């Protein structure tokens, strides 16, 4: 499944944040969106997952404008894992994952055995099956994030959006999450802060700066010394290590 934006503009509080974004995520590819704070990464993703309405331009999902989808239908296409806030409720892990089935249920339909099977598989996949009856609020941050990933998986969508879900997590969880997401064989769009993680996992990277896309392409072509200098205003070394991985090393400002 393919997601595309065409000359996308978006406003937040009267200020235009996105100034005409042309973005494409191809079928089953892992697409990273990088850029400094305030560059518009999250705003772009919010337009794609419908929480924000573009002021101009449009998002296309499988060639059809997103605005023509019913909310329920777009939730069958796109699942979201976002930075999540503290939830002030008492749901068990299974209850939370079961909510991923919501877009597939009609108004009076009850949860079926098939739903519970899907939920169980999703929990197994992310390794939270043993936490099934625990209360969501009693889990650690990493566990909560995995439960929310299980919920997104239970949604069974061809596309998954990661809106900086790993920012406050330990590096171990960040790597685990991206490894898992990569193995899903779905279209994944992820806003990523860490350039090394972006370099390791993404098929394609879009670089944003001040609401524009300033570069796009394979990590190796995009992540260059000069680009990092101009976008992030820091000096860095970019090289391929002995395992063939693209690495970015930063220098302290005082050394430059």
């Amino acid at each position: 499944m393919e997601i595309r934006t065409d000359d996308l503009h978006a406003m937040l509080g009267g200020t235009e944040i996105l100034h005409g974004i042309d973005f494409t995520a191809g079928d089953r590819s892992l697409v990273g969106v990088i850029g400094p704070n305030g560059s518009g990464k999250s705003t772009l993703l919010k337009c794609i997952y419908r929480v924000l309405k573009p002021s101009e331009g449009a998002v296309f999902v499988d060639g059809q404008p997103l605005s023509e989808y019913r909310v329920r239908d777009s939730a069958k296409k796109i699942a979201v894992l976002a930075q999540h806030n503290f939830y002030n409720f008492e749901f068990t892990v299974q209850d939370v994952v079961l909510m991923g089935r919501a877009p597939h249920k009609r108004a009076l339909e009850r949860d079926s055995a098939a739903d519970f099977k899907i939920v169980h598989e999703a929990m197994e996949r992310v390794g939270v099956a043993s936490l099934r009856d625990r209360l969501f609020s009693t889990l650690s941050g990493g566990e909560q994030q995995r439960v929310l990933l299980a919920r997104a998986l239970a949604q069974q969508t061809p596309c998954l959006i990661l809106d900086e879900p790993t920012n406050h997590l330990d590096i171990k969880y960040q790597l685990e999450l991206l490894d898992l997401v990569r193995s899903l064989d779905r279209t994944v769009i992820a806003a990523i802060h860490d350039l090394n993680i972006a370099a390791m996992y993404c098929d394609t990277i879009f670089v944003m700066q001040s609401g524009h896309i300033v570069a796009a392409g394979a990590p190796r072509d995009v992540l260059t010394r000069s680009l990092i200098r101009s976008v992030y205003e820091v000096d860095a070394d970019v090289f391929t290590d002995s395992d063939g991985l693209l690495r970015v090393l930063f220098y302290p400002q005082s050394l430059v």
Partner: protein
Amino acid sequence: MKQNGILRGRPTYLLVIALLTAAVLLSLAAAVTLGSVDISIGEVYRVILFKTFGLGDPAVYGTGAVSDIVWFVRLPRLVLAVGVGMCLSLAGVVMQAIVRNPLADPYVLGVSSGASLGASLAILTGVGTGLLGANAPGVLAFIGAFAVSVAVVALANLGGRANAVKLLLAGTALSSVCAAFSNFLLYLSASANAAQTLMRWTMGSLAGAEWPTNIPILVISLLGLLFFWSQFRTLNLMLLGDDTALTLGVDLHRRRLAYLLVASLLVGCAVYTAGLIGFVGLVIPHIVRILFGSDHKKIVPISALLGAIFLLWADVLCRVLIPGAELPIGVLTAMIGAPCFIWLMIRRKYGFGGGD
């Protein structure tokens, strides 16, 4: 790790619902034999049997003081208590989900102030009494409650879509306006008698119960229960907030408005028949959340049934606590509810259910 909240298992909740339904019926059967007038249990049931199925001697059980007390005084009050208890608890559960705040009660969005203003207009200035007679305070209170809900929704939708915070702010603002006008009317009113009537009304009472209003209220409360029970999935998603709900396929905006209006209708019915009865809609949903968690599939029906049982026995207490007099039910529910609430607050971390 301690598993918080007992009775969380899946089949348990259906059993609890069945038990509570039985408890409502048993409470009705038991409470109808209690009262300030001494009537034997046998006589009570013979009157009910005659009135409902036409069994027995019409001369003994169809007319007279005993028959009237059972059929026109005690039973209607109990049935009304069941209906009003369900309405208030349901509205409480739904309001808490709508504003995403477990401190919310059925009156949180200014509904009670609107109802009070309506009642004040009728009692203090005589608006509508020509047309509606003694029903005027109730009818105007209903209109006031509903009008304020609609106004809250309209106000919260100005300058962008309503959300939980804007609804709360609009509710608080309109609440103040209505309270100010109620006080203004009270200040202008020369009649001490009218002021006392108004005060009694704001304390709540089920004494006005009668069959022609009871049956509709009972039906409306049951329909409300079925409606909100069927909406459990959306109510659950409401706790996660607008953005998450949207990514899970539900646009909360319109649902929230619809639920708000249905809940106001339930509150309006309760206010119309019983005045203002506080704490039921706050404490009952809260206790149920502690025991059963946040899943509305469980807490909607259980809260409704528990609210019915609570109000039914509260009304019995009101009638028998002070011999020869009757305690206003709103006073009693506050007397029971407020300490319960304080105890809950001290005991637990503040949240949408169990867990500390």
